[in-house]
């Protein structure tokens, strides 16, 4: 979003009073090797999935794998809130899920490689307990098994 001061009173109130989990400190693990040796993963909360997969329903805390070989035309978004402008992602998947850009970074040698799967969760969660305790760590394990050294997380 936009800066808080640009919002309507109603939106600002909703954002400032949103009951997100609050923490006093951050979990932190450093990179194990320099970025140019890292296999990078992409994880999004944009509610993306492959055509034919079960779409996300609101509040759904499961995840979908998006294989690197899935072409853009096979990727759909079932996070369809009217709170954001979908026409940006209609034009370019990379505006939310920048996998073409990450492939370019591999070609430039900025990162070593990309994971064989990326993952998506559903956005606009009000109580993401299951993601926090179960499905989030599960995706982390799957990515580590895939050789991931780090992940970029994108919202929508």
């Amino acid at each position: 979003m936009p800066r808080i001061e640009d919002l309507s009173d109603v939106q600002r109130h909703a954002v400032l009073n949103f009951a997100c989990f609050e923490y006093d400190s951050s979990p932190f693990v450093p990179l194990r090797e320099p970025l140019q040796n890292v296999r990078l993963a992409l994880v999004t909360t944009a509610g993306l999935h492959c055509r034919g997969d079960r779409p996300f329903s609101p509040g759904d805390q499961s995840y979908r794998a998006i294989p690197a070989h899935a072409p853009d035309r096979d990727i759909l978004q079932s996070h369809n809130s009217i709170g954001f402008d979908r026409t940006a992602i209609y034009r370019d998947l990379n505006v939310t899920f920048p996998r073409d850009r990450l492939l370019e970074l591999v070609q430039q040698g900025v990162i070593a490689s990309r994971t064989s799967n990326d993952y998506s969760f559903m956005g606009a969660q009000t109580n993401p307990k299951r993601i926090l305790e179960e499905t989030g760590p599960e995706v982390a394990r799957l990515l580590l098994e895939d050789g991931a050294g780090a992940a970029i997380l994108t919202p929508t």
Partner: protein
Amino acid sequence: METAGLPTCSLVLLKEHAQRTKPPRALFVPFPYGYALGRPNDPEFQHRVLRAALQLFSAPGPTLAEFSGAVDGPVQLVQASAVEPFSIERDPADDLTAMRGYYERWVEGHGGRTAVGNSGIPQRRFRGLVRFLEAYVAGTPADDPEIPHDIPVPLFIRFAADDLKAFMLEGRMEQRPQDHGNALHDWLWSETAIGRLLAQVARRLKQDGEEKAAFGIAR
């Protein structure tokens, strides 16, 4: 994920929430919702955002940084209730016929990519989808479309609405490449019979107690 041992860096659209949830590495991007990488079809700009995010991996501890740079895009999206509703007698299915050529050209020009697909109904059969939604609004019986994935009817209606929007908006972007953001949403809600039908569907869902599904369609 970080606790499970995977270093992460998040792009965040809400600085105020990131300050409270405290992710390990976060880059606040002051862009509208839906624009996490800033600008569609602008690889150079998207790379600037990614470079700023990747830089946070070299910080020795938790970091919340801010990306400097602004983009165009609607901070507040035009909603159905904010515009003069479409008042001309017109069959919403005729909107589909009028936009079909543009829509198909859009898909062809984007390597077959389209946001249409969550309802599972092929676009050539959207006339039937319109009749189904009209019957739902009127409370009269209709032939049920084949609902894939065993999803509940209100959710199917939401996906059907989403597919009709995507069909219309992708067609419109082909027809008027100069239009962006709110110009497109304004057109959908104030100048099309499909937009009017979707606002009616949302009202009906709300009356039926399906607030969540309704909220995602129109307000």
